[in-house]
């Protein structure tokens, strides 16, 4: 169905254009204008994604809102956008989080405000493009393009070790994506000169080719997810990035990796996916169990949440590689939920960091005494992070464990221990930071969150509760597409 209004293009280009306009406001004497334009741009970017929901056809797994124009004729590359039930939610999530990032950075960012806001807006547009792209080259351009603003965000507004973290982030991700580019070019040749991802889905491939392609995709996406053992960039990047950067990194950028598995690895190389599933499951379980334990030992709150992200993303990859509807849908729900929860937790740490300028757990204690409202919000997000029922965190984890149970009891057993690890590291951190006696003079002098911070956390709290209590609208959207995906993966390409 050809959309009359190119909503997807708008979702991609409005933030980018807004970002360029913000950039044009220039120096910090125009900081106010920069902030206002950024807010308008991000809101506009969010509102144009709403018609995607209202006009979405739940019954079909076909791509919707398709836009198809020739782009580089020499290589038969098209400007080809479209969404199905899998990608649509990420575009919404991304546009939503961008608005929050702009609000959260409103007063906190004082240096080079225009560039900060512009980086996030441009990144948001490119991320939407990544999720909507149906052409390999277009996907790659957006996928890698997001590295540039993120590199700058970490490097310019980050913490003391930001240069190391920014470089590590960039080089790790680039290595993976360059191998993916080689894979794309190989597929281009095999498919007789097509970069259409949908054509690649139908392309028959031999086992050796599939395994090599799978490995190339694995290199790109496992770094992004990140999976053990290529996860080490994430704690560094998270710790050094400014609050908004951490939030976008955790909420959206990590999802690119998992999305890549669903869009590329599973449908293009189904036989290799099946053959290598034990490896993927093993890597996922290591992430869940081992990284869960690593998180327990962290003294830095941001590092703890970063490790918790890796553990949660381990759940996502686990869900995908057990090849049943519960697993895949659970993985998708978990991704969306983690988008809200991790962003919220990073905003929470940001709130405290703005006041105390420390991320160390040891520097806090008894925050509930001085910031009761904040403590309540953080309680909710901490609970969601451990997967308490009635929060969004529960739904995804529960579905993945159910799916795993259908495959193998022991996989499900190992995965289910996350409920223990997750609760342990999150609640222990919460206890040490929030409860107890007021630890020092700085904590005693804290002021509770204001309207701006309440708005950000409140919106996220609503989302977390809504998904936890009534997840049906989310699963309905992805249902048809996931069924189609699973049929596709079940059929051999050999």
């Amino acid at each position: 169905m050809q959309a009359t209004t190119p909503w997807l293009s708008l979702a991609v280009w409005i933030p980018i254009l807004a970002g360029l306009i913000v950039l044009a406001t220039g120096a910090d004497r125009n900081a106010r204008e920069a902030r206002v334009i950024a807010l308008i741009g991000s809101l506009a970017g969010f509102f144009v994604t709403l018609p995607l929901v209202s006009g979405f056809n739940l019954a079909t797994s076909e791509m919707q809102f398709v836009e198809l124009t020739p782009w580089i004729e020499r290589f038969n590359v098209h400007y080809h956008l479209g969404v199905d039930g899998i990608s649509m939610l990420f575009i919404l999530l991304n546009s939503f989080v961008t608005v929050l990032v702009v609000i959260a950075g409103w007063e906190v960012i004082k240096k080079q405000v225009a560039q900060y806001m512009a980086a996030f807006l441009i990144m948001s547009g490119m991320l939407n493009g990544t999720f909507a792209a149906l052409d390999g080259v277009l996907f790659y351009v957006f996928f890698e393009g997001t590295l540039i603003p993120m590199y700058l965000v970490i490097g310019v507004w980050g913490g003391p070790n930001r240069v190391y973290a920014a470089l590590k982030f960039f080089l790790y991700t680039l290595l993976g994506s360059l191998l993916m580019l080689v894979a794309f070019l190989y597929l281009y040749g095999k498919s007789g000169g097509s970069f259409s991802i949908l054509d690649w889905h139908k392309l028959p491939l031999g086992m050796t080719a599939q395994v090599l392609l799978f490995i190339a995709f694995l290199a790109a996406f496992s770094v992004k997810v990140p999976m053990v053992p290529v996860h080490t960039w994430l704690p560094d990047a998270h710790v050094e990035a400014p609050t908004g950067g951490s939030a976008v990194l955790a909420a959206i950028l990590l999802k690119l990796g998992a999305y890549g598995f669903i869009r590329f690895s599973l449908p293009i190389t189904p036989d290799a996916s099946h053959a290598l599933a034990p490896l993927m499951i093993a890597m996922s379980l290591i992430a869940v169990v081992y990284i869960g334990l690593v998180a327990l030992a962290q003294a830095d709150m941001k590092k703890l949440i970063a490790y918790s992200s890796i553990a949660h993303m381990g759940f996502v990859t686990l869900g995908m590689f057990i090849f049943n509807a519960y697993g895949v849908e659970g993985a998708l729900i978990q991704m969306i939920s983690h988008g809200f929860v991790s962003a919220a937790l990073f905003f929470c740490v940001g709130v405290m960091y703005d006041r105390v300028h420390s991320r160390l757990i040891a520097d806090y204690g008894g925050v509930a005494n001085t910031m009761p409202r904040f403590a309540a919000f953080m309680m909710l997000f901490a609970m969601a992070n451990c997967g308490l029922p009635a929060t969004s965190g529960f739904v995804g984890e529960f579905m993945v464990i159910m799916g795993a149970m259908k495959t193998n009891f022991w996989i499900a057993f190992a995965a289910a221990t996350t409920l223990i690890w997750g609760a342990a590291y999150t609640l222990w951190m919460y206890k040490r930071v929030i409860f107890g006696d007021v630890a020092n003079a700085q904590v005693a002098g804290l002021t509770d969150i204001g309207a701006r911070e309440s708005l950000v956390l409140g919106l996220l709290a609503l989302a977390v509760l809504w998904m936890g209590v009534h997840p049906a609208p989310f699963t309905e959207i992805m249902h048809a597409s996931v069924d189609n995906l699973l049929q596709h993966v079940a059929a051999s390409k050999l």
Partner: protein
Amino acid sequence: MMSSLPIMLPAYAEIFLLAMACIILIVDLYLPDGWRDLTYVLSLATLLGCAVLTVVVTAWTGGQLAYTFNNMFVSDLMANTLKTFTYIAVAGCLVYSRVYLADRGMYRGEFFVLLLFATLGMMVMISANHFLTLYLGLELLSLCLYSLVALDRDSAVSTEAAMKYFVLGALASGLLLYGMSMIYGATGSLEIVAVQQKLEQVVSRPYEKTILVFGLVFLVSGLAFKLGVVPFHMWIPDVYHGAPTAMTLIIGSAPKLAAFAMAIRLLVNGMIPLAVDWQEMLVILSVLSMAVGNLAAIAQTNIKRMLAYSTIGHMGFMLLGLLSGVVGGNRLSTADAYSSAMFYSVVYVLMSLGAFGMVLLLSRAGFEAENLSDFKGLNTRSPWFAFIMLLLMFSLAGVPPTVGFYSKFAVLSAVIQAGQVWLAVVAVLFSLVGSFYYLRVVKLMYFDEPQDRAPLRAQFDMGVLLSANGLAVLLLGVLPGPLMQLCLHAIKGLSPV
């Protein structure tokens, strides 16, 4: 077809340039020093005139092959396209280096005349259909470049660089001539297209084949020297470093197009029947260049040296396109492969022009911005030019959405279609290494505090052109199609493709 065209039509632009260079040489003698801008304007006008003539010639011949001077000189679509880009690059060099030269007492008539003669040399190389024509063009270009490097005659570093360049350049020319003589011995012709026809017949005879491959080795060595690929790269870092930055800009930009044309004329137009042999040689040159260029660039603290090693790496990457043309004796994908290399060269020249332009912009009277640390905190000094440099650096690193990505993309596509996936993997790994030092420049500009708080002063012409240069890198990245198509057409117009 020939009879209906004026006999010297294919060379109109060259003749015009030669005449104008002589006129400028004489006019400048009678100009007082304050009037030097007239020479500058005249030189730019000459380049514009050449561009118009080239377009006229293309329109007249309809992009078909047209020979003149007894088939020694050819006008085809590739020649005319590359010449047009050469004019643009040379004009860019003029604009970028004007203030720099004026500040250093090198803003003199010789500079313009030498640069115009160098341009003439490049045009002759690009249009050569005869080993002698090619050699003449090459020598004209090289001699002008040697003199340009030594133009700042009081500088010991520049003189040393010029000397090094001259000695090694002469050696390379010797190698090239020796190779040509071998080929001549085996085929009995110096005319490039005739050599190719002859080769098709003799290539299967073992005796001739030995001589031919022997000659080919020398040809490829000479060519490799001019392109500056490992192991013939030694002059590049020293010359780039030692020459006044304006001259580095000149050496690092337009002559790369001429060197690419020379590779096409010699290897493709002339020696394509021996493609299997020269492609193997290019594989070694290419992999070594990417390795040495990208690894050595990491260790540099001088930006001119860093860009010199980056050139080596880039030329190695460009060779990947040239060596993917003929697969198992099959010439079906030659146009795709060679056009990707051409696209790479054109894009590289655009980026290199911008990068050296930025170095020139940061220099001012009595201060050479040569060290990487001079880029520290550029974002606080001038956000706009920092942004331009950011685009250029990400483009050199091959990160989308800049055009540098598509040039790598096109070449990699050719390599993979030629079935050499391993080579593509090697290439991307080295470009990963390469991205590190480009990122470091971005890091210096954006993450560090400036050492030098003097505001950036850009002359109007330079500021506009540099901005256009940086934005072109972005715009061509959003819409790379037309330029790719142009390169494809240009290569398809070649005689054996």
